């Protein structure tokens, strides 16, 4: 069909191949914006976050010995994360920088995801302090609770980021957060059996496995986000 094809010589093809393969197989350098950039202009937010966390600790001290500590701890697990999440997005939206940042190489969604990654890593450790304070009350189930709380925190965090990416709205995540609080209160009031089953009966190993799985999911999510944003070609 059509014109008679004049192919390149084998040598010429080889040269082309070298060039192309070199590019294709190059070790993709991942460049990420550093900590300072991710948390740019966040001093006030972090201050509020820390303050609120201290309030949570104070609350823990208050409820020590009054029973049902586990329910409260579980409920408070995602607090630190969500406070920073909402404040971050609110602040950026107030400054009207979201639109502009979305068009950057490191998009707004990416920056928020990375910021919340660091925040949640911190939160996991900070939450352990809560567990520590109430250790005596929680006794044998302290670690199960910590694992379960961490799992819940991670999945809620992932959900909040995915929701924001797909809808551009943090409000829906607010519903999620509220739902979590309501759910925990429900557990306290009506679902004591369920709590007992989940936290106290299910063995620690299972909780740790599920927590590990949640970390893997998180890892996979970050890998995808980084794919879209951070690879240099």
């Amino acid at each position, binding site marked *: 069909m059509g014109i008679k094809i004049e192919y390149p010589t084998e040598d010429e093809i080889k040269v082309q191949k070298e060039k192309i393969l070199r590019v294709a197989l190059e070790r993709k350098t991942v460049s990420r914006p550093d900590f300072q950039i991710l948390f740019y202009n966040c001093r006030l937010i972090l201050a509020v976050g820390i303050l609120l966390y201290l309030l949570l600790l104070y609350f823990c001290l208050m409820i020590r010995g009054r029973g049902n500590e586990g329910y409260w701890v579980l409920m408070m697990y995602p607090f630190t994360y969500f406070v920073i999440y909402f404040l971050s997005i609110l602040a950026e939206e107030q*400054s*009207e*920088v979201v*639109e*502009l940042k979305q*068009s950057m*190489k*490191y998009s707004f969604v990416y920056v928020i995801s990375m910021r919340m990654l660091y925040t949640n890593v911190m939160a996991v450790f900070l939450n352990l302090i809560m567990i520590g304070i109430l250790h005596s009350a929680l006794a044998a189930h302290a670690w199960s609770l910590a694992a379960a709380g961490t799992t819940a925190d991670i999945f809620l965090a992932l959900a909040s980021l995915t929701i924001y990416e797909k809808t551009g709205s943090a409000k829906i995540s607010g519903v999620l957060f509220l739902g979590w609080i309501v759910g925990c209160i429900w557990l306290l009031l009506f679902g004591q059996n369920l709590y007992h089953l989940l936290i106290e009966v299910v063995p620690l190993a299972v909780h740790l496995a599920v927590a590990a799985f949640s970390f893997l999911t998180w890892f996979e999510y970050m890998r995808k986000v980084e*794919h879209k944003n951070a*690879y240099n070609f």
Partner: protein
Amino acid sequence: MLTISDVTKCYGKNTAVEHISLDLDNGLYGLLAPNGAGKTTLIKMITTLLMPTSGEILWNGVEIHRLGAQYREIIGYLPQQFGYYKNNSPRQYLEYLAALKGLPTEGLRERIEEVVAQVGLSEVLNTKMKKFSGGMLQRVGIAQAILNDPKILILDEPTGGLDPKERVRFRNIISAMSKDRIVILSTHIVSDIESIANQVILIKDRQIYRNDTVSAICAELNGKVYEQSMSNEAYEAFEGDHFILSARQEYDGMTVRFFSEEKETEGRTCVPNLEDFFLVTFR
């Protein structure tokens, strides 16, 4: 080349734009339409902020969403409303955005000083932006858009708040830049682009109405735009019967520019300009 191929954007039952097809190569494109006509929607799709409902946008043959960060790296965008951090100086703001744009730190200092000089803000490089006037802020916005020397520069209503002198300077910068990159300037102010656009894209009723050079578009109105002088009193009556494009108060009456399909005996024909076409199209 940036190819917009049969792009439509719907929000539920409402259609913002439909069947938009454009090929953009180096040069300055003026995107002209009244407010709310779909310009910003189109711009947001080009800057990856929105995804088309159907159709696709390609950069050098590959879909822009597939290119992801690679594509965003080569665009510079000035949104209609862009924000900043009040306690930043232009230098700090630009340094921050440079990091988000993935620019290397090497040579960054000089580059920032360069673009700031281009928009005439060298003197306030280290002044907090909360003290800036609207025009100055706008110029910072332009500076950040060109910071990464983008291959596609997209400006959405960029001249708001600029005084006449600043507008001229702006036109000069943009015009010079359009020689070796794609510049898309979206506006409803005709004078912004009339003198510098290589091509004007008019959007009407959610579709592309015209996509042509300024002179070709204006030529469509040849012989239909008139100018006539009359007394103020005569103008009052005149106004009711005619499609007035502009009316200028003179020392001894009014000079009226109007549009007429039929041949007019009294007025003299004049060369139509883009403003005329805009008014006639979007009456």
